[in-house]
Protein backbone atom coordinates (compact mmCIF):
# COMPACT_ATOMS: atom_id res chain seq x y z
CA UNK A 1 0.00 0.00 0.00
CA UNK A 2 2.81 2.38 0.93
CA UNK A 3 4.50 1.50 -2.34
CA UNK A 4 1.37 2.55 -4.21
CA UNK A 5 1.50 5.96 -2.50
CA UNK A 6 5.20 6.35 -3.28
CA UNK A 7 4.76 5.39 -6.93
CA UNK A 8 1.79 7.74 -7.20
CA UNK A 9 3.78 10.63 -5.74
CA UNK A 10 6.58 10.10 -8.26
CA UNK A 11 4.30 9.88 -11.27
CA UNK A 12 2.13 12.77 -10.04
CA UNK A 13 5.23 14.96 -9.70
CA UNK A 14 6.27 14.34 -13.30
CA UNK A 15 2.79 14.97 -14.67
CA UNK A 16 1.89 17.92 -12.43
CA UNK A 17 4.87 20.04 -13.39
CA UNK A 18 3.97 19.73 -17.09
CA UNK A 19 0.23 20.08 -16.47
CA UNK A 20 0.70 23.32 -14.51
CA UNK A 21 2.23 24.91 -17.61
CA UNK A 22 -0.79 23.95 -19.73
CA UNK A 23 -3.14 25.44 -17.12
CA UNK A 24 -1.02 28.57 -16.75
CA UNK A 25 -1.07 29.16 -20.51
CA UNK A 26 -4.79 28.42 -20.71
CA UNK A 27 -5.66 30.90 -18.00
CA UNK A 28 -3.80 33.73 -19.73
CA UNK A 29 -4.26 33.07 -23.46
CA UNK A 30 -7.41 30.89 -23.29
CA UNK A 31 -6.55 27.91 -25.40
CA UNK A 32 -5.23 24.43 -24.79
CA UNK A 33 -1.69 24.37 -26.19
CA UNK A 34 -0.92 20.90 -27.52
CA UNK A 35 2.63 21.94 -28.41
CA UNK A 36 3.32 22.08 -24.67
CA UNK A 37 3.91 18.33 -24.66
CA UNK A 38 6.68 18.78 -27.23
CA UNK A 39 8.28 21.45 -25.02
CA UNK A 40 8.64 18.73 -22.38
CA UNK A 41 10.20 16.29 -24.84
CA UNK A 42 12.58 18.94 -26.19
CA UNK A 43 13.47 19.92 -22.61
CA UNK A 44 14.40 16.32 -21.86
CA UNK A 45 16.62 16.05 -24.93
CA UNK A 46 18.25 19.43 -24.24
CA UNK A 47 19.13 18.38 -20.70
CA UNK A 48 20.61 15.15 -22.06
CA UNK A 49 22.61 17.00 -24.72
CA UNK A 50 23.97 19.67 -22.37
CA UNK A 51 24.89 17.02 -19.84
CA UNK A 52 26.65 15.12 -22.60
CA UNK A 53 28.89 18.18 -23.05
CA UNK A 54 30.24 17.47 -19.58
CA UNK A 55 28.04 19.60 -17.33
CA UNK A 56 26.43 18.42 -14.09
CA UNK A 57 22.81 17.32 -14.21
CA UNK A 58 21.47 20.35 -12.25
CA UNK A 59 23.33 22.77 -14.52
CA UNK A 60 22.19 20.93 -17.63
CA UNK A 61 18.59 21.00 -16.40
CA UNK A 62 18.75 24.73 -15.70
CA UNK A 63 20.20 25.47 -19.14
CA UNK A 64 17.55 23.29 -20.74
CA UNK A 65 14.76 25.03 -18.80
CA UNK A 66 15.96 28.48 -19.89
CA UNK A 67 16.36 27.43 -23.53
CA UNK A 68 12.94 25.76 -23.63
CA UNK A 69 11.38 28.82 -21.99
CA UNK A 70 12.91 31.02 -24.68
CA UNK A 71 11.66 28.64 -27.35
CA UNK A 72 8.14 28.90 -25.93
CA UNK A 73 8.39 32.70 -26.21
CA UNK A 74 9.61 32.35 -29.80
CA UNK A 75 6.66 30.10 -30.69
CA UNK A 76 4.32 32.66 -29.15
CA UNK A 77 5.90 35.48 -31.19
CA UNK A 78 5.90 33.57 -34.46
CA UNK A 79 2.58 31.74 -34.32
CA UNK A 80 0.23 32.38 -31.43
CA UNK A 81 0.62 36.17 -31.21
CA UNK A 82 -0.41 36.73 -34.84
CA UNK A 83 -3.42 34.47 -34.22
CA UNK A 84 -4.48 36.15 -31.00
CA UNK A 85 -7.70 37.58 -32.46
CA UNK A 86 -8.88 34.18 -33.71
CA UNK A 87 -11.22 31.78 -31.99
CA UNK A 88 -9.72 29.48 -29.33
CA UNK A 89 -10.55 26.45 -31.52
CA UNK A 90 -8.39 27.84 -34.32
CA UNK A 91 -5.47 28.43 -31.97
CA UNK A 92 -5.88 24.94 -30.58
CA UNK A 93 -5.65 23.43 -34.08
CA UNK A 94 -2.70 25.68 -34.92
CA UNK A 95 -0.96 24.45 -31.77
CA UNK A 96 -1.23 20.93 -33.20
CA UNK A 97 0.60 22.23 -36.25
CA UNK A 98 3.38 23.53 -34.01
CA UNK A 99 3.41 20.22 -32.13
CA UNK A 100 3.81 18.24 -35.38
CA UNK A 101 6.65 20.53 -36.49
CA UNK A 102 8.51 20.22 -33.19
CA UNK A 103 7.95 16.46 -33.07
CA UNK A 104 9.36 16.11 -36.55
CA UNK A 105 12.35 18.24 -35.57
CA UNK A 106 13.12 16.13 -32.48
CA UNK A 107 12.75 12.85 -34.35
CA UNK A 108 14.89 14.04 -37.26
CA UNK A 109 17.69 15.40 -35.08
CA UNK A 110 17.85 12.63 -32.48
CA UNK A 111 16.60 9.62 -34.42
CA UNK A 112 14.47 6.82 -33.06
CA UNK A 113 16.94 5.21 -30.65
CA UNK A 114 16.15 5.45 -26.94
CA UNK A 115 18.59 7.26 -24.65
CA UNK A 116 19.03 6.66 -20.96
CA UNK A 117 20.40 9.02 -18.34
CA UNK A 118 23.02 6.97 -16.51
CA UNK A 119 22.96 8.23 -12.95
CA UNK A 120 23.95 6.55 -9.73
CA UNK A 121 21.10 6.20 -7.32
CA UNK A 122 20.78 4.79 -3.82
CA UNK A 123 17.65 3.08 -2.64
CA UNK A 124 16.12 3.35 0.80
CA UNK A 125 13.49 1.31 2.55
CA UNK A 126 10.56 3.37 3.77
CA UNK A 127 8.45 0.96 5.79
CA UNK A 128 7.93 -1.78 3.22
CA UNK A 129 8.26 0.55 0.23
CA UNK A 130 11.39 1.12 -1.83
CA UNK A 131 12.39 4.71 -2.60
CA UNK A 132 15.44 5.71 -4.58
CA UNK A 133 17.36 8.95 -4.25
CA UNK A 134 16.26 9.67 -7.80
CA UNK A 135 12.61 9.40 -6.76
CA UNK A 136 13.24 11.85 -3.94
CA UNK A 137 14.94 14.25 -6.38
CA UNK A 138 11.94 14.08 -8.71
CA UNK A 139 9.42 14.76 -5.96
CA UNK A 140 11.62 17.43 -4.36
CA UNK A 141 12.17 19.27 -7.65
CA UNK A 142 8.46 19.43 -8.34
CA UNK A 143 7.59 20.63 -4.84
CA UNK A 144 10.32 23.29 -5.02
CA UNK A 145 9.15 24.40 -8.46
CA UNK A 146 5.55 24.72 -7.25
CA UNK A 147 6.64 26.82 -4.28
CA UNK A 148 8.67 29.09 -6.56
CA UNK A 149 5.67 29.46 -8.89
CA UNK A 150 3.38 30.35 -5.98
CA UNK A 151 5.86 32.94 -4.72
CA UNK A 152 6.23 34.36 -8.22
CA UNK A 153 2.48 34.69 -8.70
CA UNK A 154 1.61 35.98 -5.26
CA UNK A 155 4.65 37.83 -3.97
CA UNK A 156 5.97 39.73 -6.99
CA UNK A 157 4.65 42.62 -9.06
CA UNK A 158 5.00 40.56 -12.21
CA UNK A 159 2.93 37.77 -10.70
CA UNK A 160 0.22 40.16 -9.61
CA UNK A 161 0.13 41.61 -13.11
CA UNK A 162 -0.09 38.12 -14.59
CA UNK A 163 -3.00 37.23 -12.35
CA UNK A 164 -4.74 40.50 -13.26
CA UNK A 165 -4.22 39.63 -16.93
CA UNK A 166 -5.73 36.20 -16.45
CA UNK A 167 -8.69 37.64 -14.59
CA UNK A 168 -9.65 40.47 -16.92
CA UNK A 169 -7.42 41.34 -19.83
CA UNK A 170 -9.10 44.62 -20.76
CA UNK A 171 -9.23 45.93 -17.24
CA UNK A 172 -5.61 44.95 -16.64
CA UNK A 173 -4.59 46.85 -19.77
CA UNK A 174 -6.40 50.02 -18.74
CA UNK A 175 -4.51 49.84 -15.46
CA UNK A 176 -1.26 49.99 -17.39
CA UNK A 177 -0.30 46.34 -17.16
CA UNK A 178 1.71 45.45 -20.27
CA UNK A 179 0.01 42.35 -21.69
CA UNK A 180 2.66 41.37 -24.21
CA UNK A 181 5.57 41.42 -21.79
CA UNK A 182 3.68 39.49 -19.15
CA UNK A 183 2.40 36.97 -21.70
CA UNK A 184 6.02 36.41 -22.72
CA UNK A 185 6.95 35.88 -19.07
CA UNK A 186 4.10 33.39 -18.73
CA UNK A 187 5.30 31.41 -21.77
CA UNK A 188 8.82 31.41 -20.40
CA UNK A 189 7.67 29.95 -17.09
CA UNK A 190 5.41 27.42 -18.82
CA UNK A 191 8.21 26.34 -21.18
CA UNK A 192 10.76 26.07 -18.39
CA UNK A 193 8.39 23.97 -16.29
CA UNK A 194 7.72 21.71 -19.25
CA UNK A 195 11.48 21.22 -19.68
CA UNK A 196 11.82 20.35 -16.00
CA UNK A 197 8.94 17.89 -16.27
CA UNK A 198 10.31 16.32 -19.43
CA UNK A 199 13.70 15.90 -17.77
CA UNK A 200 12.17 14.28 -14.67
CA UNK A 201 10.12 11.98 -16.88
CA UNK A 202 13.22 11.00 -18.86
CA UNK A 203 15.25 10.44 -15.68
CA UNK A 204 12.71 7.92 -14.43
CA UNK A 205 12.18 6.22 -17.80
CA UNK A 206 14.17 7.09 -20.91
CA UNK A 207 14.29 9.51 -23.81
CA UNK A 208 12.69 8.54 -27.08
CA UNK A 209 10.93 10.62 -29.73
CA UNK A 210 7.52 9.06 -29.06
CA UNK A 211 7.59 9.81 -25.36
CA UNK A 212 5.20 12.66 -26.19
CA UNK A 213 2.46 10.07 -26.61
CA UNK A 214 3.18 8.75 -23.12
CA UNK A 215 2.92 12.27 -21.68
CA UNK A 216 0.06 13.68 -23.75
CA UNK A 217 -2.83 11.70 -22.33
CA UNK A 218 -1.97 11.81 -18.61
CA UNK A 219 -1.11 15.52 -18.75
CA UNK A 220 -4.29 16.56 -20.53
CA UNK A 221 -6.30 14.17 -18.39
CA UNK A 222 -4.86 15.82 -15.27
CA UNK A 223 -5.53 19.34 -16.52
CA UNK A 224 -9.08 18.56 -17.58
CA UNK A 225 -9.87 16.77 -14.35
CA UNK A 226 -8.69 19.86 -12.45
CA UNK A 227 -10.28 22.39 -14.79
CA UNK A 228 -8.24 23.74 -17.72
CA UNK A 229 -7.42 27.11 -16.20
CA UNK A 230 -6.71 26.12 -12.60
CA UNK A 231 -3.13 25.63 -11.45
CA UNK A 232 -4.10 23.99 -8.19
CA UNK A 233 -6.56 21.89 -10.19
CA UNK A 234 -3.77 20.69 -12.49
CA UNK A 235 -1.72 19.52 -9.51
CA UNK A 236 -4.74 17.94 -7.83
CA UNK A 237 -5.70 16.33 -11.14
CA UNK A 238 -2.22 14.84 -11.48
CA UNK A 239 -2.40 13.44 -7.93
CA UNK A 240 -5.89 11.98 -8.37
CA UNK A 241 -4.95 10.51 -11.72
CA UNK A 242 -1.79 8.77 -10.59
CA UNK A 243 -3.48 7.48 -7.43
CA UNK A 244 -6.34 6.03 -9.48
CA UNK A 245 -3.86 4.49 -11.92
CA UNK A 246 -1.62 2.94 -9.31
CA UNK A 247 -4.47 1.71 -7.14
CA UNK A 248 -6.23 0.18 -10.14
CA UNK A 249 -3.11 -1.77 -11.10
CA UNK A 250 -2.04 -2.44 -7.52
CA UNK A 251 -5.18 -4.12 -6.29
CA UNK A 252 -5.50 -7.89 -6.44
CA UNK A 253 -8.99 -8.09 -7.94
CA UNK A 254 -8.74 -11.86 -8.26
CA UNK A 255 -8.44 -12.47 -4.52
CA UNK A 256 -11.30 -10.06 -3.89
CA UNK A 257 -13.76 -11.94 -6.05
CA UNK A 258 -12.63 -15.43 -6.98
CA UNK A 259 -9.75 -16.36 -4.71
CA UNK A 260 -7.04 -16.73 -7.34
CA UNK A 261 -4.75 -13.70 -7.59
CA UNK A 262 -5.44 -11.49 -10.63
CA UNK A 263 -4.12 -8.01 -11.27
CA UNK A 264 -5.16 -5.57 -13.97
CA UNK A 265 -2.24 -5.69 -16.43
CA UNK A 266 -0.05 -2.59 -16.16
CA UNK A 267 -0.47 -1.74 -19.85
CA UNK A 268 -3.94 -0.50 -18.89
CA UNK A 269 -2.30 2.53 -17.19
CA UNK A 270 -3.03 4.91 -20.08
CA UNK A 271 -6.48 3.44 -20.63
CA UNK A 272 -7.32 4.26 -17.02
CA UNK A 273 -6.02 7.82 -17.43
CA UNK A 274 -8.17 8.46 -20.48
CA UNK A 275 -11.20 6.73 -18.99
CA UNK A 276 -10.89 8.89 -15.87
CA UNK A 277 -10.68 12.03 -17.98
CA UNK A 278 -13.67 11.17 -20.17
CA UNK A 279 -15.68 10.15 -17.12
CA UNK A 280 -14.91 13.36 -15.21
CA UNK A 281 -15.77 15.47 -18.24
CA UNK A 282 -19.04 13.64 -18.71
CA UNK A 283 -20.00 14.06 -15.08
CA UNK A 284 -18.69 17.47 -14.15
CA UNK A 285 -20.66 20.69 -14.46
CA UNK A 286 -19.61 23.45 -16.84
CA UNK A 287 -15.99 24.51 -16.86
CA UNK A 288 -14.68 26.48 -13.92
CA UNK A 289 -13.20 29.93 -13.78
CA UNK A 290 -9.52 30.70 -13.53
CA UNK A 291 -8.04 30.12 -10.12
CA UNK A 292 -4.95 32.15 -10.90
CA UNK A 293 -7.06 35.02 -9.63
CA UNK A 294 -7.74 33.74 -6.15
Amino acid at each position, binding site marked *: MLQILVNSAIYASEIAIIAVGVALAYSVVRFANFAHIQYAVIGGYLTYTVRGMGFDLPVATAVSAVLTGLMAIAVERLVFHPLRAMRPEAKMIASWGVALLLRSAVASVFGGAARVFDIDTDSYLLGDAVVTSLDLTVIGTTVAAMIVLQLLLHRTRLGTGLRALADNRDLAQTRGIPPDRLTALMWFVAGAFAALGGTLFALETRLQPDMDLQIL*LPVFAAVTIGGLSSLAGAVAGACVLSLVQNIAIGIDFGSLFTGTPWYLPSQFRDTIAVAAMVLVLCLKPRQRRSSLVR
Partner: protein
Amino acid sequence: MLDFLIFAVTMISIWSVVALSLDLQFGLTGLVNFGQILPFALGAYGPAIAAAHGFSLEEGIVLGLVLAAAGGLVVLVPAGRLSQDYWALVSLGAAELFRLLMVNVAPIAGGQDGTAVPRVSDPVVAMVLAVALLAAMLLLARRIDRSPLGRLLRVLREDELLAATLGRNPFRAQAVITLVSWLMAALAGILYAHIVGYVAPSSFTVGETFIVWTALILGGAGSLVGAVVGTAFVQIISVSTRFVADWSGLPFDLVANLRLGVFGLILVLVFLFRREGLFPERKVTIHAADP
Protein backbone atom coordinates in the same frame (compact mmCIF):
# COMPACT_ATOMS: atom_id res chain seq x y z
CA MET B 1 3.39 4.02 -61.99
CA LEU B 2 -0.17 3.13 -62.94
CA ASP B 3 -0.42 0.91 -59.86
CA PHE B 4 0.71 3.82 -57.77
CA LEU B 5 -1.90 6.13 -59.33
CA ILE B 6 -4.70 3.63 -58.69
CA PHE B 7 -3.57 3.25 -55.10
CA ALA B 8 -3.31 7.01 -54.64
CA VAL B 9 -6.79 7.66 -56.03
CA THR B 10 -8.22 4.94 -53.76
CA MET B 11 -6.61 6.39 -50.65
CA ILE B 12 -7.50 9.97 -51.58
CA SER B 13 -11.15 8.95 -52.05
CA ILE B 14 -11.35 7.13 -48.72
CA TRP B 15 -9.68 9.86 -46.70
CA SER B 16 -11.68 12.53 -48.52
CA VAL B 17 -14.81 10.94 -47.11
CA VAL B 18 -13.32 11.27 -43.61
CA ALA B 19 -12.38 14.89 -44.32
CA LEU B 20 -15.94 15.54 -45.56
CA SER B 21 -17.33 14.03 -42.38
CA LEU B 22 -15.08 16.32 -40.32
CA ASP B 23 -16.09 19.25 -42.51
CA LEU B 24 -19.76 18.65 -41.75
CA GLN B 25 -18.96 18.89 -38.04
CA PHE B 26 -16.34 21.63 -37.99
CA GLY B 27 -16.98 23.55 -41.21
CA LEU B 28 -20.73 23.65 -40.87
CA THR B 29 -21.35 23.27 -37.16
CA GLY B 30 -18.13 24.51 -35.59
CA LEU B 31 -17.75 21.40 -33.43
CA VAL B 32 -14.05 20.75 -32.87
CA ASN B 33 -13.64 17.01 -33.01
CA PHE B 34 -10.08 15.91 -32.24
CA GLY B 35 -11.04 12.26 -32.48
CA GLN B 36 -12.62 11.91 -35.92
CA ILE B 37 -10.44 8.85 -36.37
CA LEU B 38 -12.78 7.12 -33.89
CA PRO B 39 -15.81 6.62 -36.19
CA PHE B 40 -13.39 5.58 -38.94
CA ALA B 41 -11.81 3.05 -36.58
CA LEU B 42 -15.19 1.83 -35.31
CA GLY B 43 -16.24 1.27 -38.92
CA ALA B 44 -13.05 -0.62 -39.72
CA TYR B 45 -13.39 -2.75 -36.60
CA GLY B 46 -16.84 -3.95 -37.75
CA PRO B 47 -15.33 -6.15 -40.50
CA ALA B 48 -12.35 -6.93 -38.27
CA ILE B 49 -14.48 -8.26 -35.42
CA ALA B 50 -16.65 -10.11 -37.95
CA ALA B 51 -13.55 -11.73 -39.50
CA ALA B 52 -12.09 -12.64 -36.11
CA HIS B 53 -15.30 -14.26 -34.87
CA GLY B 54 -16.64 -15.87 -38.03
CA PHE B 55 -19.47 -13.52 -38.96
CA SER B 56 -20.35 -12.80 -42.57
CA LEU B 57 -19.29 -9.81 -44.65
CA GLU B 58 -22.70 -8.14 -44.37
CA GLU B 59 -22.80 -8.63 -40.62
CA GLY B 60 -19.39 -6.98 -40.40
CA ILE B 61 -20.58 -3.94 -42.34
CA VAL B 62 -23.70 -3.57 -40.21
CA LEU B 63 -21.61 -4.02 -37.06
CA GLY B 64 -19.28 -1.22 -38.17
CA LEU B 65 -22.18 1.16 -38.72
CA VAL B 66 -23.85 0.22 -35.44
CA LEU B 67 -20.58 0.69 -33.50
CA ALA B 68 -20.06 4.13 -35.06
CA ALA B 69 -23.63 5.26 -34.38
CA ALA B 70 -23.36 4.08 -30.78
CA GLY B 71 -20.00 5.84 -30.38
CA GLY B 72 -21.49 9.04 -31.78
CA LEU B 73 -24.35 8.92 -29.30
CA VAL B 74 -21.96 8.34 -26.40
CA VAL B 75 -19.71 11.33 -27.16
CA LEU B 76 -22.79 13.48 -27.70
CA VAL B 77 -23.79 13.06 -24.07
CA PRO B 78 -21.22 15.58 -22.78
CA ALA B 79 -21.32 17.75 -25.92
CA GLY B 80 -24.33 19.74 -24.77
CA ARG B 81 -22.73 20.80 -21.51
CA LEU B 82 -19.08 21.33 -22.32
CA SER B 83 -17.36 24.27 -23.96
CA GLN B 84 -15.49 23.64 -27.22
CA ASP B 85 -12.04 23.00 -25.79
CA TYR B 86 -13.30 20.48 -23.28
CA TRP B 87 -15.32 18.65 -25.88
CA ALA B 88 -12.33 18.55 -28.21
CA LEU B 89 -10.45 16.79 -25.41
CA VAL B 90 -13.35 14.38 -24.81
CA SER B 91 -13.38 13.40 -28.47
CA LEU B 92 -9.60 12.97 -28.47
CA GLY B 93 -9.80 10.94 -25.28
CA ALA B 94 -12.62 8.75 -26.59
CA ALA B 95 -10.64 7.91 -29.73
CA GLU B 96 -7.54 7.01 -27.71
CA LEU B 97 -9.62 5.03 -25.24
CA PHE B 98 -10.95 2.84 -28.03
CA ARG B 99 -7.51 2.41 -29.58
CA LEU B 100 -5.93 1.47 -26.24
CA LEU B 101 -8.70 -1.04 -25.58
CA MET B 102 -8.07 -2.64 -28.96
CA VAL B 103 -4.34 -2.77 -28.19
CA ASN B 104 -4.79 -4.31 -24.77
CA VAL B 105 -7.78 -6.64 -25.19
CA ALA B 106 -6.56 -9.09 -27.79
CA PRO B 107 -9.66 -11.36 -27.88
CA ILE B 108 -11.76 -8.65 -29.56
CA ALA B 109 -9.74 -8.39 -32.77
CA GLY B 110 -6.15 -9.50 -32.34
CA GLY B 111 -4.83 -6.76 -30.06
CA GLN B 112 -1.66 -4.96 -31.16
CA ASP B 113 -1.09 -7.38 -34.04
CA GLY B 114 -4.49 -6.71 -35.53
CA THR B 115 -6.52 -9.06 -37.64
CA ALA B 116 -6.85 -9.95 -41.32
CA VAL B 117 -10.03 -8.99 -43.16
CA PRO B 118 -11.34 -10.37 -46.50
CA ARG B 119 -9.65 -8.23 -49.09
CA VAL B 120 -10.90 -6.60 -52.28
CA SER B 121 -8.01 -8.11 -54.22
CA ASP B 122 -8.43 -6.26 -57.53
CA PRO B 123 -7.01 -2.74 -57.07
CA VAL B 124 -9.19 -1.35 -59.87
CA VAL B 125 -12.36 -2.66 -58.22
CA ALA B 126 -11.15 -1.17 -54.94
CA MET B 127 -10.60 2.18 -56.61
CA VAL B 128 -14.03 2.15 -58.25
CA LEU B 129 -15.67 1.34 -54.92
CA ALA B 130 -13.78 4.13 -53.16
CA VAL B 131 -14.56 6.71 -55.83
CA ALA B 132 -18.21 5.67 -55.84
CA LEU B 133 -18.39 6.08 -52.07
CA LEU B 134 -16.78 9.50 -52.32
CA ALA B 135 -19.23 10.58 -55.04
CA ALA B 136 -22.22 9.43 -53.01
CA MET B 137 -20.95 11.15 -49.86
CA LEU B 138 -20.19 14.37 -51.76
CA LEU B 139 -23.78 14.41 -53.01
CA LEU B 140 -25.07 13.78 -49.50
CA ALA B 141 -22.86 16.48 -47.99
CA ARG B 142 -23.95 18.95 -50.68
CA ARG B 143 -27.55 18.10 -50.00
CA ILE B 144 -27.09 18.77 -46.27
CA ASP B 145 -25.06 21.91 -46.97
CA ARG B 146 -27.89 23.44 -49.02
CA SER B 147 -30.74 22.22 -46.84
CA PRO B 148 -32.52 24.18 -44.10
CA LEU B 149 -30.54 22.04 -41.63
CA GLY B 150 -27.29 23.24 -43.20
CA ARG B 151 -28.38 26.86 -42.92
CA LEU B 152 -29.42 26.38 -39.32
CA LEU B 153 -26.05 24.82 -38.53
CA ARG B 154 -24.25 27.81 -40.05
CA VAL B 155 -26.30 30.15 -37.89
CA LEU B 156 -25.45 27.97 -34.89
CA ARG B 157 -21.76 28.12 -35.70
CA GLU B 158 -21.76 31.90 -35.88
CA ASP B 159 -24.10 32.69 -33.03
CA GLU B 160 -25.69 30.07 -30.83
CA LEU B 161 -27.87 32.62 -29.06
CA LEU B 162 -29.34 33.85 -32.33
CA ALA B 163 -30.25 30.29 -33.30
CA ALA B 164 -31.97 29.82 -29.96
CA THR B 165 -34.01 33.00 -30.45
CA LEU B 166 -35.17 31.59 -33.78
CA GLY B 167 -36.83 28.87 -31.75
CA ARG B 168 -34.44 26.14 -32.89
CA ASN B 169 -33.02 23.44 -30.74
CA PRO B 170 -29.25 23.73 -31.28
CA PHE B 171 -28.43 20.45 -29.64
CA ARG B 172 -30.78 18.43 -31.83
CA ALA B 173 -29.29 19.86 -35.01
CA GLN B 174 -25.78 19.10 -33.76
CA ALA B 175 -26.83 15.59 -32.78
CA VAL B 176 -28.23 14.89 -36.27
CA ILE B 177 -25.13 16.17 -38.03
CA THR B 178 -22.84 14.26 -35.67
CA LEU B 179 -24.64 11.00 -36.38
CA VAL B 180 -24.59 11.58 -40.14
CA SER B 181 -20.92 12.47 -40.14
CA TRP B 182 -19.97 9.55 -37.91
CA LEU B 183 -21.79 7.09 -40.16
CA MET B 184 -20.03 8.68 -43.13
CA ALA B 185 -16.61 8.17 -41.55
CA ALA B 186 -17.62 4.63 -40.56
CA LEU B 187 -18.44 3.78 -44.20
CA ALA B 188 -14.98 4.99 -45.16
CA GLY B 189 -13.51 2.86 -42.37
CA ILE B 190 -15.40 -0.26 -43.47
CA LEU B 191 -14.22 0.15 -47.05
CA TYR B 192 -10.69 0.89 -45.83
CA ALA B 193 -10.64 -2.36 -43.85
CA HIS B 194 -11.73 -4.41 -46.87
CA ILE B 195 -9.30 -2.68 -49.24
CA VAL B 196 -6.24 -2.84 -47.01
CA GLY B 197 -7.28 -6.31 -45.83
CA TYR B 198 -5.90 -5.72 -42.39
CA VAL B 199 -7.02 -3.83 -39.27
CA ALA B 200 -4.67 -2.94 -36.40
CA PRO B 201 -4.78 -0.26 -33.69
CA SER B 202 -1.66 1.46 -35.03
CA SER B 203 -3.64 2.76 -38.03
CA PHE B 204 -5.95 4.83 -35.85
CA THR B 205 -3.76 7.12 -33.75
CA VAL B 206 -4.21 10.79 -32.87
CA GLY B 207 -1.74 11.51 -35.65
CA GLU B 208 -4.17 10.19 -38.27
CA THR B 209 -6.85 12.59 -37.04
CA PHE B 210 -4.44 15.47 -37.52
CA ILE B 211 -3.57 14.45 -41.03
CA VAL B 212 -7.28 14.82 -41.77
CA TRP B 213 -7.36 18.17 -39.95
CA THR B 214 -4.39 19.38 -42.00
CA ALA B 215 -6.22 18.42 -45.19
CA LEU B 216 -9.40 20.17 -44.10
CA ILE B 217 -7.70 23.40 -42.98
CA LEU B 218 -5.55 23.48 -46.12
CA GLY B 219 -8.53 22.94 -48.41
CA GLY B 220 -10.71 25.39 -46.53
CA ALA B 221 -13.14 24.52 -43.77
CA GLY B 222 -16.75 24.77 -44.85
CA SER B 223 -15.93 23.98 -48.47
CA LEU B 224 -16.69 20.53 -49.90
CA VAL B 225 -14.28 20.87 -52.83
CA GLY B 226 -11.67 22.09 -50.37
CA ALA B 227 -11.97 18.93 -48.29
CA VAL B 228 -11.24 16.76 -51.34
CA VAL B 229 -8.43 18.91 -52.74
CA GLY B 230 -6.82 19.26 -49.32
CA THR B 231 -6.96 15.50 -48.83
CA ALA B 232 -5.51 14.87 -52.28
CA PHE B 233 -2.57 17.14 -51.48
CA VAL B 234 -1.90 15.63 -48.07
CA GLN B 235 -2.36 12.01 -49.20
CA ILE B 236 -0.04 12.47 -52.17
CA ILE B 237 2.65 13.74 -49.79
CA SER B 238 1.83 10.81 -47.52
CA VAL B 239 1.90 7.95 -50.01
CA SER B 240 4.88 9.26 -51.96
CA THR B 241 7.19 9.21 -48.93
CA ARG B 242 8.71 5.96 -50.17
CA PHE B 243 9.56 7.46 -53.58
CA VAL B 244 11.02 10.56 -51.98
CA ALA B 245 13.20 8.37 -49.78
CA ASP B 246 14.40 6.36 -52.80
CA TRP B 247 14.95 9.41 -54.96
CA SER B 248 16.73 11.54 -52.34
CA GLY B 249 18.73 8.70 -50.86
CA LEU B 250 17.76 9.80 -47.35
CA PRO B 251 16.76 7.11 -44.83
CA PHE B 252 13.05 6.25 -44.90
CA ASP B 253 12.62 7.06 -41.18
CA LEU B 254 14.00 10.54 -41.64
CA VAL B 255 11.74 11.24 -44.63
CA ALA B 256 8.71 9.98 -42.68
CA ASN B 257 9.62 12.29 -39.79
CA LEU B 258 10.11 15.24 -42.10
CA ARG B 259 6.72 14.54 -43.68
CA LEU B 260 5.16 15.08 -40.27
CA GLY B 261 6.95 18.41 -40.08
CA VAL B 262 5.59 19.34 -43.51
CA PHE B 263 2.04 18.70 -42.27
CA GLY B 264 2.70 20.83 -39.20
CA LEU B 265 4.18 23.58 -41.33
CA ILE B 266 1.17 23.52 -43.67
CA LEU B 267 -1.20 23.88 -40.70
CA VAL B 268 0.74 26.79 -39.23
CA LEU B 269 1.31 28.59 -42.54
CA VAL B 270 -2.34 28.32 -43.59
CA PHE B 271 -3.42 29.79 -40.26
CA LEU B 272 -0.89 32.61 -40.54
CA PHE B 273 -1.29 33.54 -44.18
CA ARG B 274 -4.47 32.12 -45.68
CA ARG B 275 -6.98 31.49 -42.95
CA GLU B 276 -9.83 30.59 -45.26
CA GLY B 277 -7.79 27.82 -46.93
CA LEU B 278 -7.28 27.24 -50.65
CA PHE B 279 -10.99 27.12 -51.39
CA PRO B 280 -12.77 29.55 -49.09
CA GLU B 281 -16.30 28.85 -48.01
CA ARG B 282 -18.71 30.65 -50.32
CA LYS B 283 -20.96 33.30 -48.88
CA VAL B 284 -24.50 32.01 -49.12
CA THR B 285 -27.14 34.60 -49.83
CA ILE B 286 -30.72 33.54 -49.50
CA HIS B 287 -33.55 35.79 -50.53
CA ALA B 288 -36.82 35.34 -48.72
CA ALA B 289 -39.57 34.55 -51.19
CA ASP B 290 -42.24 37.20 -51.51
CA PRO B 291 -45.43 36.09 -49.85
